[in-house]
């Protein structure tokens, strides 16, 4: 894949991945079926899909928490399960932040909790301190909060601490499972701004799982749409939202702006259906008015 002249290398390759839960019992069900896609170095990939479409199951394969029932996951072209003993090193390269990660905090202070991951990596002394402080700064935790107990913080602050705990490991790929679920609108935007900054400054790959089309549309370079354990479509936001009809028939949402554009088209205005930002819609409308005046 290329973008802006530079060629992007795939950092993760998912090949025919299938995962079946509780195989051999009456509860058996496939949460991921024959999924294949690549994740490129430095890109911001969004994954979207219904509740139960297999998003969380899929991303737990990326750092080897789950082992594929069949299929492979390649990191830098190497099967992560080639040497099962070395799976921990994969987890340091692909950092995964779970859904509702605030429940994983356990240390006496925020600082120690953030330091858990990097300490497991073997970092010590100044390097450890640098990683912890930098990660705390990236998610907007103030220095004076580092010595407090994580259990005294608000839900949103706990979430940030948990996020910092994974960022502090400095993974090459950061996977976030619905990081903004359950936050208020201001908190959401704030946290997304932190994540955008992280991506802009570090140029590291981010995979963002979300329920919100608007959140995805505003942040990512590329979207992967999942539907009942399969990849429904993938492409840039413009490509995906150009197929807004399909998204809607699949029972998924489209960004609000796209919905407005679709409504306008229904009313007979010749608007490009792939717009998904307010600015793009504005441009379209202005162009339309000029075009209309010319007639």
């Amino acid at each position: 894949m290329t973008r802006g002249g530079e060629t992007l290398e795939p950092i993760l390759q998912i090949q025919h991945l299938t995962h079946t839960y509780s195989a051999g019992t009456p509860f058996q069900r496939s949460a991921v079926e024959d999924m294949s896609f690549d994740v490129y170095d430095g890109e911001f990939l969004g994954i979207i899909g219904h509740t139960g479409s297999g998003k969380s199951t899929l991303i737990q394969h990326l750092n080897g928490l789950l082992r594929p029932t069949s299929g492979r996951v390649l990191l830098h072209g190497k099967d992560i399960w080639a040497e099962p003993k070395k799976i921990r090193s994969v987890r340091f390269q692909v950092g995964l932040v779970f859904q509702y990660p605030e429940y994983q905090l356990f240390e006496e202070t925020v600082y120690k909790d953030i330091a858990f991951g990097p300490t497991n990596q073997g970092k010590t002394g100044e390097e450890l301190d640098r990683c912890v402080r930098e990660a705390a700064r990236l998610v907007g935790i103030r220095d004076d909060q580092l010595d407090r107990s994580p259990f005294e913080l608000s839900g949103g602050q706990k979430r940030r601490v948990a996020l910092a705990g994974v960022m502090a490991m400095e993974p090459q790929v950061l996977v976030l499972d619905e990081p903004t679920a359950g936050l208020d609108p201001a908190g959401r935007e704030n946290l997304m701004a932190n994540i955008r900054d992280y991506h802009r400054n570090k140029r590291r790959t981010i995979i963002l799982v979300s329920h919100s089309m608007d959140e995805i549309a505003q942040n990512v370079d590329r979207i992967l749409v999942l539907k009942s354990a399969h990849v429904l479509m993938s492409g840039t936001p413009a490509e995906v939202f150009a197929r807004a009809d399909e998204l809607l028939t699949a029972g998924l949402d489209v960004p609000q702006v796209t919905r407005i554009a679709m409504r306008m088209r229904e009313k007979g205005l010749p608007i490009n259906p792939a717009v998904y930002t307010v600015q793009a819609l504005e441009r379209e409308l202005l162009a339309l008015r000029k075009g209309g005046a010319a007639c």
Partner: protein
Amino acid sequence: MLKDITLGQYFPGDTVAHRLDPRTKILLVTFYIIALFCAKGAVSYGLLALTLAVCVRISRVGLHALVRGLKPVLFIILFTGILNLFFTPGERYLVEWGVLRISDTGLRNAIFMVIRIMLLIMGTFLMTYTTSPISLTDGLERLLNGLKKIHVPVHELAMMMSIALRFIPTLIEETDKIMSAQKARGADFESGGLVQKARALIPVLVPLFISAFRRADELATAMECRCYHGGEGRTKLHVLHYAARDWAALALGAAILVGVLALRPLGL
């Protein structure tokens, strides 16, 4: 590994085995356990194994799920078997190898003991697989109702048990989730000695306890909001009634128990 602990898990279904009154099933399992401990010879064990096989067939719970339930106790089964095998004195020794000797009685005892434990566990699991935890404790409460007269807090015990049963799967799931989250941060639960392994559990246990206390608190509030004040004057949504099939099942169960007891003096 954690997922293998299936105690208290219920496989919904609509077979005769599922529809039996929970009291019937508890009594049947009690009969079965008594019969297992009274069984002396191959004929009795064969009869009891056959009974279980028929029940498994009727309940449509896969044999696979039952065998999976045995996995966590495999060690205990093997241990008991080996103890019996080597340390039962007998008249004739089949193998003598230093201090290790296998007598004919030892071999017999070991085989029967292993079969007995396996049947016992599978029989009990069959009950929990086909009976929802709620109706199981309901049945138990009704069966033990008489003990209230001697001030045994039957209702409270039953309530505690149903809450505990209800939350076992939840807590296991939660443990799995927390372990995964800590593994994602590089926690290592596998390597190291005993002390190191125990220490590695701290990042799991602390969040688990916090969430268990939170759940208990929330549940207590929810119960109080719905005016729970103990068993006094509390009526049931599902009142238990014995049906014809219950009497039939109990009669069959009793017949098998009597059969095993009758075979006992014959040593069969």
